[in-house]
């Protein structure tokens, strides 16, 4: 696994862990046009970490891109809080 994919997976799983505590994060994701793609990516990261799925290049790219976008959403929420 490439380091960028590993990092993306870790980040996506952390996002899922934050859902319980942050309704704002959930809402911010759901408001996105590509909410389904982002949430699928979260599910893929969890399933991948449990060896329930394998990824091809397209899958890897989807996770990395989704991770970046979710990081951006979290950052924006943090800025709003400040």
């Amino acid at each position, binding site marked *: 696994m490439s380091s960028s994919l590993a990092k993306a997976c870790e980040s996506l799983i952390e996002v*899922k862990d934050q*859902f*319980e505590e942050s309704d704002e994060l*959930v809402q911010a*994701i*759901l408001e996105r046009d590509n*909410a*389904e*793609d982002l*949430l*699928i*990516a*979260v*599910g*893929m*990261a*969890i*399933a*991948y*970490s*449990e*060896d*329930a*799925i*394998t*990824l*091809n*290049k*397209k*899958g*890897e*790219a*989807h996770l990395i891109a989704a991770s970046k976008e979710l990081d951006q959403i979290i950052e924006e929420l943090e800025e709003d809080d400040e």
Partner: protein
Amino acid sequence: MPQGLYSDQYLKALIAEKPKVAKEFFTAIAESEYVGEKEIISCIEVPDWVLVKAGVAACKNPNFPMKNFEEFLGNEETLTESYWNLFNYPHLKKEHIKKLSQHSNINVRGLALAHPFGDHDLLLALLKKVIPENDHSCHVITNRICQTVPLNDELFAYLTSVHDFESGSRTIGQALWDNPSLSDLHKAELVLSEITPKGDGNSFWDDHRENLISSVPYFQLFDSSFGYLKAKFDSIPTFSPQVTQFFNSKGHPLSVLLPEESEAEIKVDRYVLDDLNSAGLLNRLFWSELCQRDDFEIYRRNAYRTDDLFISHPILSREFEEADVDNATHLGGVFIFDNQKWLIGNQELPADRAAWELRAYEQSMATIVEDGTYEYLGQTLIAMTFELPELPEKYGFELTEDAEEWMIDAALEFAEPDSFDVSADLNPLFREVLSWSKTPDAKKLVIFEFLLLGLSEEESKLRSDCIHFLGCMALHDSTPKSILEKLAKIKDPLIDEVLSSRN
């Protein structure tokens, strides 16, 4: 006999004729967790020292010692938490009632004032204060006071004026109908005021009562299954064989199931038919051997809030198979599967049902997350591939061999019982002692008469059970010709069809 109590003639005989064996019997009961169960505390032959072990619930039994009762009364916590039980004590004295009538707890006070020794003028004043305020902290108005207070005209007039007041799922008017002191004149007034008794929607099932205490050693001997009471029942030490030998010699109805000849006459009695039909004893008696036939097997079927255990047979199970799967437990011979010892059950959650449990039908991860369901997002992704087979290609992944099992494991955490594929069979390791073929002919006739007695019941689960077992009797190769002839005379369509199939 006071309400809720019964006399067990077999136990009474044991106490009189074999006091030492009786003492051992009661010691076994008293040492077990079963001591607090209904059949123990409701039996008037049970001695005081056993009842004391049962605790406050046993206060309804007249043998409960006054000294221990007064200790309960003196304990404020017991009094305020268990007033329902304490006011069942048949030896309540005037001085008890006088003191309790001044208690700060409104329920205790209300019950004391409503007691035959209570001050009914004060009770009326209390009711006139509580009812208009709709004060539901007094839980005993409809479920106790109105049903038990000796009614005078003034009390009756007030209660009928507020007959609509509802508490504990019944109104005052409905509760008054259950009051044994209701005079014919009062009844006429209720009718004229269009105050009717509470219709009982569950009457079909309401014929259940506790077993005889003398049946308990037989249940142990037969290794019976007791559902939620299993742990308590299993805590009873093994009874001496002398106990059942004695009860057999007195013609105990459950001795009819033992393979040896009976020296005593076994009386057919409606009251003990329930004992015979309880704990699946008749099911075991007939089904275990009938399952050796090619056309007869155990059949378990689940549905919403139902896990029915019955049999499959071209005639005897037709009604069950055609019935609404959610509503067939009431049919004759059917019972709820609960891992009974004599059965062995299997259940598994198929992958497609697991996917459904994980809400794959939503076809949208966003919809699921919007509902606040985050715990199984990985497994939900796998589940969604069942509804959206194009998903893996679209997003660039493939399921591994472990994916399905991982998804099923998650769904097992919360899957509804009716999502499982279920099956059951006779437990090959269970040592079955009940056998229709080994039952002596004289006892077969007694069992026939018991079941015939059940047929005289109104529509009920018991009646339906009896028809089913008579049908089993008609099918079994070991049923004597004389009984087959009697079965034919019943003129029941199901039994007749089974009898015709024998030819």
